């Protein structure tokens, strides 16, 4: 067992590894968990949605080409522009960046796959099904129609009585599951699954960009998920979170939405900027200048981007001093952005640039994005913002930023990395006319909107009068839009031609110094026949030499063993080899699980609330069945990893990727909880029609009982871990842990039913209901975790050395105890806060 497997010749090694890692044929492909397959699926699906969004944009431009157009009525136009924004933001931009990260990160970092391959697959299916629900709704004529940011009260039941808004809330939340899954996976993979020796300061810059982006997603998406849940609960059950007549507030929706929405812009931009930072140095033949400064700029940008959400809300009646805070922060964020642009200019200035096709698109990116950034600084200034708010000037700005900051870099990336993906070089030069059509068409479309906006043309109007100076500008915009579309059509043709007739090549056509070019092209399913060692910054490597060595099995894990899908995990900071990660093989479970989640979403959409419990239970059963193929029933100790070194498997160490996965899951969950607390306190402090008619009397007995149960659950699980570490049995402690959770659930449900006033009566009661329900839900899952630990020990998967299952459970129990206690204490204190508020007023 502990002898290193025999070294094979490269071809035999390839065959053995391919047999383990390949995704199978025919229907077996539905069970693929490989990051190369799934990354491509994400990108292709995102491009299909981009095409759909593009067609919707054409419809918008056709409608606005002339005044008094009869092409569409107002109701249809509302659906079309809402769907255009929704599709482009949620179904194209984010999944495209996720797809690129999923495909490239393991290749750039020197790993064989991402940390949680089945999670990647689940994320893909959730994305596909969620997106499909939204598109099908559009085809059925019931698409969302309240704008892509779904402001209440427009999206509330009285003003949007149909199913349209529900499609958005449920469909987008379904897609968001995919985004959060991807963010957790990307974070853990970057931190743990790198090539040995790749310390943080040697990581390719794209890794840093994606690390910052993924962390932003973990903290940025939960406010929107919470907002969607609250609004759906309001629409379905009449809980008045956003209804000002019953103590709710529409402003709460705007806050929660933009807490997500502004970081979202940077979440979209940063990966694209990361791609530029990878491509530009190669084509400039000069390593990236300011590598460290860029990393600091990224961190600053990430935080500042969260601190400027209110700059979308300058006209919503917020105190002027607060506007100054957000205005200043909005202007500040231009500085870290500028640092990156100057780093790219310096890289070019000190290099010997080659003006290849990707460079053309980078030129387009720089021109368009800088223009968008400048109008962004204009809009950050409150007086100007008040003038330009909700006009086409804002439409122009956001398209300059998003198309400039995402689409142009992605086109550059497509031309740069397509040879890596396909193994073929382009033979035609359609990319050049495609670029000029896109560049000219884009500027013609959107530059005009600055002028129509400054002339007062509002957004989201389906028609406009003639003879007020908007008509010829709109006509030019529409013509530009169709030129832009022709450019994209040419791009698609060019890619198809490259796939079909492209020239095969051996390796690394650009002379790049990053690991994805040290692979055969197109890359095999296992990425590297053996894993590289990195001893310098990972964008200055000799990819050609390394490629041959790695294919010959002369790196780490240069063998196939026991049919295992193995990759190495390293120490987060130093990149020292730490343990072997045994990845799960192909499985249909992600597909079945996402179908069950889809069933749950559809049940809610069609208001089969009781029935929705069936697919929900199925989700739980399927999620538990994921663990049937993981774990080991015996302690193995360190095993050979090549180069004469040994390392344990991830089941036998303390900081396994799955443990970190739970940590980051709880960060995301904690952000959702913090957003809920923010919502509760916001309504108490700001919302009209407080105090509520009744606050209910929760007393002290029930809360104390719940707090004790939480403490007991967390404590007993720690005792279980300690008993297991000593070689004893943790079963009794785990049983007590489950019992404590169930006690907490019973008392919490009793409180919800008997103490909290009717949650439809006032936002106060609705907030108390949700806080207690959050605690109860987490405690229920805590009982499941305890039961799971119990079963895993009983089945022999847990020992003094293999305690991962129990320690992951500990994280959940501690989190539940902490957040549950805060929720219960807040509910206890709420009547006092209400009384204080009434006295102050």
């Amino acid at each position: 067992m502990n002898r290193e497997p025999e070294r094979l010749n490269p071809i035999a090694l390839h065959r053995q590894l391919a047999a383990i890692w390949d995704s199978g044929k025919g229907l077996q492909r539905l069970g693929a968990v490989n990051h190369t397959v799934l990354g491509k699926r994400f990108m292709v699906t995102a491009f299909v949605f981009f095409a759909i969004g593009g067609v919707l944009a054409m419809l918008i431009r056709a409608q606005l080409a002339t005044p008094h157009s009869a092409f569409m009525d107002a109701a249809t136009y509302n659906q079309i522009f809402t769907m255009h924004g929704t599709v482009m933001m949620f179904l194209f931009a984010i999944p495209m960046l996720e797809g690129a990260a999923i495909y490239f990160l393991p290749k750039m970092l020197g790993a064989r796959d991402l940390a949680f391959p089945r999670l990647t697959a689940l994320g893909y299916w959730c994305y596909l099904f969620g997106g499909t629900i939204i598109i099908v709704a559009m085809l059925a004529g019931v698409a969302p129609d309240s704008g892509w940011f779904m402001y209440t009260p427009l999206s509330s039941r009285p003003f949007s009585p149909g199913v349209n808004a529900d499609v958005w809330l449920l469909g987008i939340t379904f897609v968001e599951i995919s985004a959060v899954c991807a963010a957790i996976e990307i974070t853990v993979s970057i931190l743990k699954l790198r090539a040995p020796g790749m310390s943080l300061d040697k990581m390719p810059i794209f890794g840093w960009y994606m690390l910052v982006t993924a962390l932003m997603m973990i903290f940025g998406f939960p406010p929107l998920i919470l907002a969607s849940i609250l609004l759906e609960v309001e629409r379905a059950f009449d809980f008045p979170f956003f209804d000002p007549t019953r103590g709710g507030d529409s402003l709460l929706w705007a806050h929660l939405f933009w807490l997500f929405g502004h970081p979202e812009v940077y979440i979209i931009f940063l990966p694209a900027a990361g791609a530029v930072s990878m491509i530009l140095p190669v084509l400039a033949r000069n390593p990236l200048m300011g590598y460290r400064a860029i990393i600091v700029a990224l961190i600053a940008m990430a935080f500042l981007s969260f601190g400027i959400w209110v700059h979308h809300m300058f006209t919503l009646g917020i105190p002027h001093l607060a506007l100054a805070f957000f205005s200043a922060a909005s202007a500040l964020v231009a500085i870290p952005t500028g640092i990156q642009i100057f780093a790219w200019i310096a890289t070019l200035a000190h290099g010997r640039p080659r003006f290849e096709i990707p460079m053309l698109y980078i030129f387009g990116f720089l021109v368009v994005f800088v223009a968008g950034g400048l109008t962004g600084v204009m809009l950050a200034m409150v007086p100007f913002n008040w003038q330009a708010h909700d006009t086409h000037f804002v439409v122009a700005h956001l398209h300059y930023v998003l198309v400039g900051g995402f689409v142009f870099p992605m086109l550059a990336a497509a031309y740069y990395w397509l040879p890596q993906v396909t193994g073929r070089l382009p033979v035609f030069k359609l990319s050049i006319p495609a670029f000029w059509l896109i560049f000219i068409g884009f500027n013609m479309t959107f530059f005009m909107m600055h002028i129509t906006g400054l002339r007062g043309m509002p957004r989201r109007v389906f028609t406009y009068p003639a003879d007020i100076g908007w008509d010829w500008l709109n006509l030019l915009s529409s013509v530009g839009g169709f030129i832009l579309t022709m450019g994209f059509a040419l791009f698609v043709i060019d890619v198809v031609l490259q796939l079909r007739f492209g020239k095969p090549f051996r390796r690394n056509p650009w002379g790049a110094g990053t690991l994805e070019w040290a692979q055969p092209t197109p890359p095999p399913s296992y990425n590297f026949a053996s894993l590289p060692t990195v001893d310098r910054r990972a964008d200055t490597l000799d990819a050609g030499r390394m490629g041959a060595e790695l294919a010959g099995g002369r790196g780490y894990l240069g063998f196939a063993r026991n049919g295992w899908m193995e990759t190495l995990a390293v120490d987060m900071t130093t990149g020292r080899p730490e343990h072997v990660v045994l990845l799960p093989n192909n499985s249909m479970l992600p597909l079945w699980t996402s179908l069950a989640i889809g069933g749950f979403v559809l049940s809610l959409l069609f208001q089969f609330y009781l029935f929705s419990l069936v697919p929900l239970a199925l989700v739980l059963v399927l999620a538990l069945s994921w663990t049937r193929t993981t774990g080991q029933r015996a302690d193995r100790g360190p095993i050979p990893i090549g180069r004469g070194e040994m390392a344990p498997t991830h089941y036998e160490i303390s900081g396994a990727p799955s443990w970190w996965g739970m940590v980051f899951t709880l960060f995301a969950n904690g952000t959702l909880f913090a957003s809920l607390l923010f919502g509760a306190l916001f309504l108490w402090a700001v919302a009209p029609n407080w105090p509520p008619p009744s606050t209910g009397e929760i007393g002290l007995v029930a809360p104390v009982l719940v707090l004790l149960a939480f403490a007991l659950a967390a404590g007993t699980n720690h005792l279980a871990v300690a008993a297991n570490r000593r070689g004893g049995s943790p079963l009794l402690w785990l049983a007590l842990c489950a019992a404590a959770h169930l006690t907490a659930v019973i008392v919490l449900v009793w409180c919800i039913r008997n103490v909290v006033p009717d949650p439809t009566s006032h936002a106060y009661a609705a907030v108390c209901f949700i806080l207690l329900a959050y605690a109860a839900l987490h405690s229920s899952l805590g009982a499941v975790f305890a039961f799971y630990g119990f079963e895993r020990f009983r089945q022999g998967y847990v020992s003094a050395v293999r305690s991962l299952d129990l320690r992951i459970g500990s994280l959940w129990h501690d989190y539940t105890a902490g957040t549950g206690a805060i929720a219960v204490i807040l509910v206890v204190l709420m009547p006092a806060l209400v009384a204080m508020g009434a006295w102050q007023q």
Partner: protein
Amino acid sequence: MKQSPVPARRMIWLVLGHVAWAAGFVALYAGLSIGCEYGWHVMELAGGVSVQRAMLIVLFLATLAATSVIAFLSWRRWSAARTKTAAAAPAPFLEWASFISSLTAVAAAIVSLAPSFVLTTCY
């Protein structure tokens, strides 16, 4: 298993300054909103300074102090790391980046929150 020469917790210093800035930012915004709601801006504390203004200035100074202390500590860590010849990679990088990142947090605190001193609060 051997302990890492550069424990993962050191990475927290990369973001600590900005976490302090973000906490101060949210506290100021929340304090301002609550104060405006309950009329603290028209309650005079002393010498023509309202309760609202005093609270905002205290919160601003606390944020500035927190970010500055973090920047100072980061500078000391960086100084120690660059003079230590055998410091394991990536310690010098992490300490440098943490120090510069903390400095940017101090700058962000001053630029974004200093309006607390001068601008009208609730109109």
